[in-house]
């Protein structure tokens, strides 16, 4: 019980931090309004999916280094398939790319289970492979995206009966994020499979002895990670309108947000809400730095330093917990 309280307390603390950051933002830039919030939600989208991908695997007691490369591959695949194609064709592209992410993620899991090579080495190898594959699909940023997909994350959600002032604070990107995550996460969390994922992360041996199919659960965890990464890749393509074969800084960001979100790197603990709030916190810090008119390159340095510090802190906590 106290454990549950502590975990919820962590997420509540993050929410408080987020609100404080919003207030600071408003102080720095009194004009900060709904449209800025919309662009924040759009910027968060790919990061949030990357973090979701990492969270599932970390809860299952592993780590996925190929998240960013998977996003790059799915992004360029989507962008190059939609290039010059009709709007309706995109209806086929989206499920295809998602299925591709799922299958490639499952391949990660199968390689880990079959070869018995540690996850960190296998996903490092698939990071190389997926990066190479992304370069084979598109060797330079390019491609295109269907207009309706772009429209899916720009603008706000019109809800009848609500005044425009509140309406403006509901960007479509946020809605897309919430729907995509909830549709997958909530049923998973309530199912036996979700419980198994937590079980193998908490103690693989205990899970095995209680009859949890460890190998199958691990493969599914990695497949879900691939699926979320594919969502992230699509989000990248939707927000930029093109596909870029060079992976962005999503790997480190995802690990940092997972740690900040209260998910133990050892596995078996935490939920999805914490890391997602953590992403908003990290992005909002960046917004504030930009609003303070700090050189974008310096912003990148500060952001990197924050992420490294967070990861160091998380590792320190894990070490303390073990002793």
């Amino acid at each position, binding site marked *: 019980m106290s454990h549950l309280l502590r975990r919820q307390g962590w997420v509540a603390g993050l929410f408080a931090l987020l609100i404080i950051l919003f207030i600071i933002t408003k102080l720095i830039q009194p004009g900060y309004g709904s449209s800025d919030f919309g662009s924040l939600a759009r910027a968060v989208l790919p990061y949030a999916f990357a973090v979701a991908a990492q969270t599932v695997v970390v809860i299952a007691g592993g780590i996925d280094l190929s998240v960013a490369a998977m996003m790059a591959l799915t992004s360029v695949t989507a962008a190059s398939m939609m290039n010059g194609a009709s709007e309706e064709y995109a209806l086929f592209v989206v499920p295809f790319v998602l299925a591709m992410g799922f299958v490639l993620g499952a391949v990660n899991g199968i390689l880990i289970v079959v*070869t018995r090579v540690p996850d960190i080495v296998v996903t490092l190898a698939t990071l*190389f*492979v997926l990066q*190479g594959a*992304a*370069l084979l699909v598109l060797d330079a940023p390019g491609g295109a995206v269907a207009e309706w997909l772009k429209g899916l994350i720009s603008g706000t959600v019109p809800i009848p009966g609500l005044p425009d002032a509140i309406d403006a604070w509901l960007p479509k990107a946020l809605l897309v994020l919430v729907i995509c995550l909830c549709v997958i996460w909530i049923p998973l969390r309530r199912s036996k499979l979700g419980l198994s994922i937590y079980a193998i992360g908490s103690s693989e041996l205990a899970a095995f002895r209680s009859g949890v199919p460890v190998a199958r659960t691990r493969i599914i965890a990695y497949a879900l990670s691939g699926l979320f990464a594919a969502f992230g890749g699509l989000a990248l393509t939707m927000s930029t309108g093109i596909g870029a074969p060079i992976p962005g800084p999503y790997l*480190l960001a995802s690990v940092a947000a997972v740690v900040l979100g209260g998910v133990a790197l050892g596995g078996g603990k935490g939920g999805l809400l914490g890391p997602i709030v953590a992403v908003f916190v990290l992005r909002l810090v960046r917004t504030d730095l930009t609003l303070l008119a700090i050189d974008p390159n310096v912003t*990148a340095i500060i952001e990197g330093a924050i992420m490294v510090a967070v990861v160091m802190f998380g590792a320190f906590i894990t070490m303390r917990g073990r002793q």
Partner: protein
Amino acid sequence: MSTTAITPVPFGRRVKRFMADRPLIPLIILLVILVVILQILRPGIVNERWIANTIKFAIPLAILAGCQTMTMLTGGIDLSVGTVATMSAFIMATQVVNQDPAVAFLLAMMPAVLIGLVNGIGVGVFRVHPLIMTLGTSLIGTGCLQVYQRTVIASGAKIPDFLAWLGTGVTYGFPNALLLFVPLAALIVFTLSRTGFGRLLYAVGDNERATRLSGVQYWQVITALYVISSVLAGITGLLYIGLIKAPSLSLAEPLVLPSVAAAVIGGTSIFGGRGGYTGTIIGALILTVLTTLLTILQMPEGARRILFGLIVLFVTAAYLRIVEER
């Protein structure tokens, strides 16, 4: 009369055991096979000039792979070597315009020491996974380099004659870079096999707990290791800029993945405690020849990366099989 004592060992297992005991011999055979394939594909390509050229390009890779070998012996990895090498090279090339070469050299090595120190403290004291830690510092380093680039954009850059001579020059058919590499490689091999520090690296990688219980200060060993690794990467950057002669912000980045692959091919276990530098050197030569081969076959960069990834995976899996059967 005991004929039963001589039980025939299956051929497959005998080959495996042979590979496990003498990892260098199959590596050299592989290298020779690759060179022969190259000669068949492009008759006459293998001559004195080609060999000198191959060695020239293999040396920076071999030094970076040395960083990976040493960190991998402790169960770590150093992904910041590409950024560190690029930083040293870029700072050297831009500072030497206005400064004395010796001062420029010191300035160029400063970020290397600093990044190594941060890596070492993060891994040794805070116990962050080396992969995440070095990835993080390399991101920060790249950011710093971009800021630095703005401040020197007006002054331009030049390659010091000495580095160009060292990087590209050939004397009596031998690349001048060997002057740097041979003592350096000898020093690494000597350190790993004959000194207390080298033994400690193997010990930490083999059984960290036991090492700590026998009184070794883990964080000191790890911090020293990552500083050494970074300094080696910085030196590689200086050598590489003499070879490539075009300072850019992504100069040594393409060498990072091959450096990991070279160490893995060379028989160093990514889990720590097993391996050595001689294998890594041959691994670097194999990869350089393989790159030439892929270029001749007109394979794109993407295919090359896929191949490197598969090599790391298969070699590690095969290594696990061999160890488990013993």
